[in-house]
């Protein structure tokens, strides 16, 4: 099971189950507890509709590069004529408790019903825009607070995490659409201009998808359900946030040598030949340091002599010091020989050991 989840969100009767059936091939099971409590407004003869909030399901993604089982959460908010329903949802999702929930999301899929008449069209359009905007604001404030918590400010671009999940707004055909089109020839068919909706929702980072469309468009892009699957496949369902942050940084810096863990491999990290050069460099540096030490010892002995005001022969280095240096040189040579042909990790370990030894010797 992947660590990240998909959130399917929408007002009641917006086609979430229809969507899930198309996407996964099955619908989520309604739990016994999901029946909503009867309020005074609902004490009519109608049966209370069980809420879909809190249900879960699974999607299996299978590509030529990976396979993943992604858990899906389903959530619902009240369908009110103003924003109170979605705002209530956004507020609860902005609370400290919901913080982990939002961090665990890899995709948000917002579903809504296609309008059937021209009048509805305008309403639906403005509703959807409002609701998507609220969801978008919730995400921004979540990551803002997250970055503040982690002590990151704008200066420190390295680990700024942003919403890197997939955001989709899916238009589900109305449940009664089929009966309408065959009977009522007087009604104008609504032209659903995908481009108009794309432009509407793009500023909020949401991609518009009409689930009824099939095939490819003029750009060779997939449409409808295939596009939904394609978009979901491009997310790293099994990576951690740190890896994702490091990879974002890596891409921006233009590093073309980082692996899927987000670690940067520069020159001298991978290639064997270059590796031994790097090791040689360390050795050379150490040799330089010891030479400098040697020189310092020399000159300090010079200074001591100078202070006496006499010109003396430069004092020969005490035997022990020369031995030490010889030991150091030998050790370095040994380590270098051992290091040849070993993988990177072990060479690093050897280098560390050597550094410790040298410090002790000195």
């Amino acid at each position: 099971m992947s660590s990240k989840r998909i959130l399917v969100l929408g007002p009641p009767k917006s086609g979430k189950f229809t969507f899930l059936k198309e996407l996964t091939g099955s619908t989520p099971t309604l739990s016994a507890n999901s029946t909503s409590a009867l309020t005074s407004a609902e004490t009519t003869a109608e049966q209370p509709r069980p809420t879909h909030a809190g249900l879960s399901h699974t999607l299996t993604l299978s590509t030529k590069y990976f396979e993943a089982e992604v858990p899906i959460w389903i959530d619902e908010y009240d369908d009110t004529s103003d924003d109170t329903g979605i705002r209530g949802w956004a507020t609860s999702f902005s609370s400290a408790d919901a913080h982990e929930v939002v961090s665990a999301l890899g995709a948000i899929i917002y579903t809504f019903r296609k309008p059937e008449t021209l009048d509805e069209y305008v309403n639906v359009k403005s509703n959807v825009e409002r609701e998507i905007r609220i969801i978008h604001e919730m995400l921004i404030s979540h990551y803002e607070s997250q970055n503040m918590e982690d002590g990151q400010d704008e200066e420190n671009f390295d680990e700024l995490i942003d919403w890197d999940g997939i955001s989709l707004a899916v238009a589900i055909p109305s449940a009664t659409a089929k009966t309408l089109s065959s009977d009522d020839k007087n009604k104008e068919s609504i032209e659903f201009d995908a481009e108009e909706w794309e432009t509407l929702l793009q500023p909020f980072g949401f991609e518009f998808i009409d689930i009824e469309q099939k095939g490819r468009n003029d750009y060779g892009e997939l449409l409808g359900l295939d596009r939904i699957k394609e978009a979901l496949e491009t997310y790293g369902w099994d990576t951690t946030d740190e890896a994702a942050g490091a990879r974002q940084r890596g891409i921006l810096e233009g590093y073309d040598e980082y692996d899927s863990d987000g670690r940067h491999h520069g020159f001298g990290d991978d290639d064997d030949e270059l590796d031994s050069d790097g090791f040689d460099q360390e050795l050379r540096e150490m040799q330089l340091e010891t030479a400098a030490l040697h020189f310092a010892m020399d000159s300090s002995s010079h200074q001591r002599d100078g202070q006496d005001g006499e010109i003396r022969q430069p004092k020969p280095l005490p035997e022990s010091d020369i031995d030490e240096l010889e030991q150091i040189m030998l050790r370095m040579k040994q380590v270098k020989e051992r290091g040849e042909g070993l993988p990177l990790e072990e060479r690093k370990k050897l280098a560390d050991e050597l550094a410790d030894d040298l410090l002790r010797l000195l």
Partner: protein
Amino acid sequence: MAVQYVILLSRQGKVRLAKWFLTLSLKEKSKIVKDVSTLVLGRRTKMCNFLEYKESKVVYRRYASLFFIAGVDSTDNELITLEIIHRYVEQMDRYYGNVCELDIIFNFQKAYYILDELLLAGELQESSKRDVLRRISQQDALEEAEGDEEKFNRLGI
């Protein structure tokens, strides 16, 4: 003809590749990426493929849910830049075989290698599709051979 940067942007606004031909701090790069992404993603289908951004020009083309974006000097020819982008896309398509976003995510090194064969210091250095593909396949063959050799060494053969 100096390309300043090449960016591959997904329809979801994710940067899949960024190659810089000038030296900029990480902050400046992030700013450019953010601004240019917003500009390009906000374009409608019938709009021109060229736009102005600060002192430079941005040339973009949309292919299969990816936006290929190149930033060029204001004195550069936009149509030639468009051709360069198209050539890059053709190379990638030929190499990956019907390239899609997933291919670029999971085999990004090849995308960079192909771009490196095409553009050097922001200038087109090899226009022959055949030559570029030949070199990349030679590279692949070399990598495979080295990989095998490594395995044999580890096994002590």
